[in-house]
């Protein structure tokens, strides 16, 4: 699935590799996520877990610093889907739902990229996530 770069929400300037992820089947409102090869985990705001009704009581809770901000990250297995037209890929990684999370986008770090072969063409401004098979 090839995605044209997009500006981060509300930002002007150069477009970046942003994809919209469906979390736990909430396909009416995919979540904007920055593909971040410099991050190890998938991080979203805690509000996303609340919207989709994910129980965070048994989550692995960790204090972490993201972008200079200390935040509480609750890690649980969540179903994610990446869709484009009729193509889609669904997988169930550990997703860290963070509070506070003041940013306008989530982070798709390396653990979110495990099931894919990622190509980034910065010059032509697209990224391609091709599911690994087998």
């Amino acid at each position, binding site marked *: 699935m090839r995605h*044209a*770069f*997009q*500006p*981060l*929400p*509300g*930002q*002007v*300037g*150069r*477009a*970046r590799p*942003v994809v*919209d992820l469906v979390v736990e089947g*909430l*396909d*009416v*409102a*995919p*979540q*904007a996520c*920055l593909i*971040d090869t410099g*991050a190890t985990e998938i991080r979203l705001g805690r*509000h*996303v877990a*609340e*919207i989709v009704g994910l129980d965070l009581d048994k989550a692995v809770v960790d204090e972490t610093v*993201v*972008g*200079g901000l200390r935040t509480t990250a609750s890690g649980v297995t969540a179903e994610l889907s990446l869709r484009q037209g009729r193509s889609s890929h669904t997988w169930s990684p550990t997703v860290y739902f963070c509070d506070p999370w*003041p*940013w*306008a*986008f989530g*982070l798709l770090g390396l653990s979110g990229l495990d099931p894919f072969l990622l190509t980034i063409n910065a010059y*032509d*401004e*697209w990224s391609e996530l091709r599911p690994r098979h087998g």
Partner: protein
Amino acid sequence: MQRQIGETVSETIRNVNVAGRAFELRASQVERLMRRVLPEPLKDHFVVVGRRRYPPKQVLGEVTGLDRAEFTTHHARRILTGLGFVAGRRSAEPTGRGFAAPPPGRRDSAASRPSAETLEPFVGQWVATKGPEVLVAAPEPKTVVGWLSEHGLKADSMFRVPADELEASGLAPR
């Protein structure tokens, strides 16, 4: 009719007849009422109230309490533009205050998400977007998802419109 309120504030007031009933409508009253009402999905025509785009019949229905079957879109649009609200059609840019053309994108990709200028009225709110359009904006993400479900719409993306540079780019340094 233009009435002066105090020395500095003027307000547009219109006496209108809708479905055989007389109403005195004030622009400020319309804005106040619609502040609590999320816009329904737009079909063709819209009016801009409080920097949000509404179907004209939704607005007139709210302020008069009349059934929407009792008046036409064009009638609602005429009354609301008479009160000073900007009207437009989705296929064309509206004319009047409060609108600016989005900046040209670096590539075609810029058109797949609303521009920063389009999002500016929604700073701090949660929005659901489809292509370059904002479908709905609300203070709580649950309200946005509820609205999408209620109207059977699917957004391309949902996010909170950042209030400043930190929220906009945060951990993604230039």
